């Protein structure tokens, strides 16, 4: 589904290389976890797959369902089924969750050949999805993320994922800022949403989330490269040993801690 090949990425116009040759293959039905210390490039990887304009690919390619998506705008990638749950979801005062979701759902539905839903049908559709992340229907009439707590924002991201039904979900530190109950709700939601036909990439700092969502593959990213890959047991090993023992594998990057 997703093939990242020798990906080198710079900040647009600054010439600072953040990703230094990333290779990653994610197949249908899989859950991958990408772990690593701060500044290792994990979030950049997620953003670049979603099409963030701040970054520039200087070398390599990203294939989605066998085709390069580098030239696609972020909305075109969303239409193709790519979804990014933001580490810091953006507040959009004046636009209600309901409005945003209906707009998003219908444009994505149209481009994927699904049927658009009228407001009443959409309402019913949303209510089922709300239960999945244990959110109050009142929340639909509130402005997107405006005045939400950190935990509410993260739950809202997963709620959007539930509504938009992506085939590739990149979840960027969705676990950070969640208390243990919220973490369980979010993790249950992700587990229910995940099936044979889609893939999930979890970007996380801590092994904690992986107690609830069991990954098929775990990758460690340090200094803009994936330095080690393994099964779910790698996450436990990281929890015990930290990242230090792996850093000698990495090409030195001052930012790695």
């Amino acid at each position, binding site marked *: 589904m997703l093939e990242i090949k020798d990906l080198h990425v710079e900040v647009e116009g600054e010439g600072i290389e953040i990703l230094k040759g990333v290779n990653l293959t994610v197949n249908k039905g899989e859950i991958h976890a990408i772990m690593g210390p701060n500044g290792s490039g994990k979030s950049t990887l997620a953003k670049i797959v*979603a*099409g*963030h*304009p*701040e970054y520039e690919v200087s070398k390599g390619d990203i294939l989605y369902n066998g085709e390069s998506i580098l030239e696609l*705008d*972020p*909305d075109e*990638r*969303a*239409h193709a089924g790519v*979804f*990014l749950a*933001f580490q810091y*979801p*953006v507040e*959009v*005062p*004046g*636009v209600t969750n309901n409005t*945003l979701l209906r*707009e*998003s759902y219908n*444009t*994505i539905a149209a*481009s994927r050949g699904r049927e658009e839903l009228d407001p009443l049908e959409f309402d019913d559709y949303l209510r089922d999805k709300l239960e999945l992340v244990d959110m109050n229907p009142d929340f639909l009439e509130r*402005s997107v993320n405006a005045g939400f707590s950190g935990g509410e924002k993260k739950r809202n991201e997963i709620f*959007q994922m539930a509504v*938009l039904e992506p085939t590739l979900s990149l979840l960027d530190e969705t676990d950070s800022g969640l208390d243990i109950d919220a973490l369980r709700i979010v993790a249950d939601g992700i587990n229910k949403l995940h099936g044979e036909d889609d893939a999930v990439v979890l970007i996380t700092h801590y092994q904690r989330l992986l107690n609830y969502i069991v990954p098929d593959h775990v990758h460690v990213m340090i200094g803009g490269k994936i330095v080690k890959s393994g099964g779910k047991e790698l996450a436990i090993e990281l929890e015990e040993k930290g990242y230090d023992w792996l850093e000698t594998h990495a090409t030195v990057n001052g930012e790695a801690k």
Partner: protein
Amino acid sequence: MALATRIEPSILHKLAKYAPESENSVWTEIRTKSLKELNSTAFPHRKIEEWIFTDLRPIVRTDFVPLEEAGTFPATDIEKYFIPESDRSRLVFINGKFHEKYSSIGGLGKGVTVGNLADHSDEEEVQKYLNNLVNYENDVFVQYNGLMFEDGAYIHLEKGAKAEAPIQVLNLYTDAKNPFVATPRMLVVSEEESDVTIIEDHIGLGENRYMTIPVCEVKVKERAHIHHVRIQRDSIDAIHVSRPIAYVEKNSEYHSYTITLGAKLTRNEPRVIQEDEEVDFTLDGLVLIDGEQIADTHSVMDHRFSHADSHQLHKVVVNGKAHSIFNGKIFVRRDAQKIDSFQENRNLLLSEDGLVNTKPQLEIFADDVLCSHGATIGQLDPEEVFYLQSRGMTEEKAKEVLTYAFALETIENVKVESVHKLLIDEVYRYTKANSESKVTV
């Protein structure tokens, strides 16, 4: 001031000889005084601090003629501007002249008087307040209005009277062969414990050049409440110079919301003057401009007594080569303690050629006050655009939605439903037009 022993006559000075005659002593007195002041006041120019950013060429370079010689076209299809809530509480002025046949004033309940100022010249309040509340220093526009106005909106609420419906003061300006000057006038006196909502609307029916100089005097007495919405939808080539001033007495509330959409050049100078303790007032504004429009707001919030809550949110969206100017003066006089004043000017620049000048101006002479103020000028946040794009919206749509959301905040407090909806539509039309013009952000 001693500056003007000999002044350069402007177009307003030249038109002064067309001032109408009046048999009414109140009007005669106002005209005599206005003419005397006008004759010794120079037209402003950009070397004066208060006018330093404002391009006055659209006024100076236009050969305005007296209204009678303008060759005005009839006003047609004006019913569409009537708001349904004011079905029986509407005053209509065309080029500043009162039109009884379009007006409707039966539905306001006891103790509310609404009509043409010229028909109420005998009333005590008119004699007492008309032209005596307006307080703008050496202002040729106020003087010219005083010299020229014949008709005007008069709204009076007796003690305890609550207007049962919002009052629409509809000012229409017609297309014309030649540019003319209109001088709408308004006097609102709200006695103790009364309550009224006023929708003041200025609409250009054509795309012609004209100048309108609305002067509005408002007196809010003890415990009275006024909700004042001002919508400026003048013709795209018009000039709009307005002077709305409100005096707020003890325990009263005055909330005003000005929406500026039209006109080539706007100079709006709202003022609120505190006359006693325990008042609450709002002076919000929303400006949406494009092309070569210039919109200038110079406001004054004058805190003269203790215990006032005041609020000013002034939001501006600039596209094309448009130019916004904001100067917000907040005065807190000596001994005016326990003031809680909020001022924020937020500017959204959608184009590279747009221009914003902003100057919050706080002059505080009391020591126990809370005055917060801020001014920002920015573009749409790329992170917000990306967020919406990642949810499937095109870049254009995302920018449209964000601009819409930015502008919407200021009109949330407009409580007349049809007007709120109308303003949402206007905001939508503006953002839609902009996303279609594919501006660079």
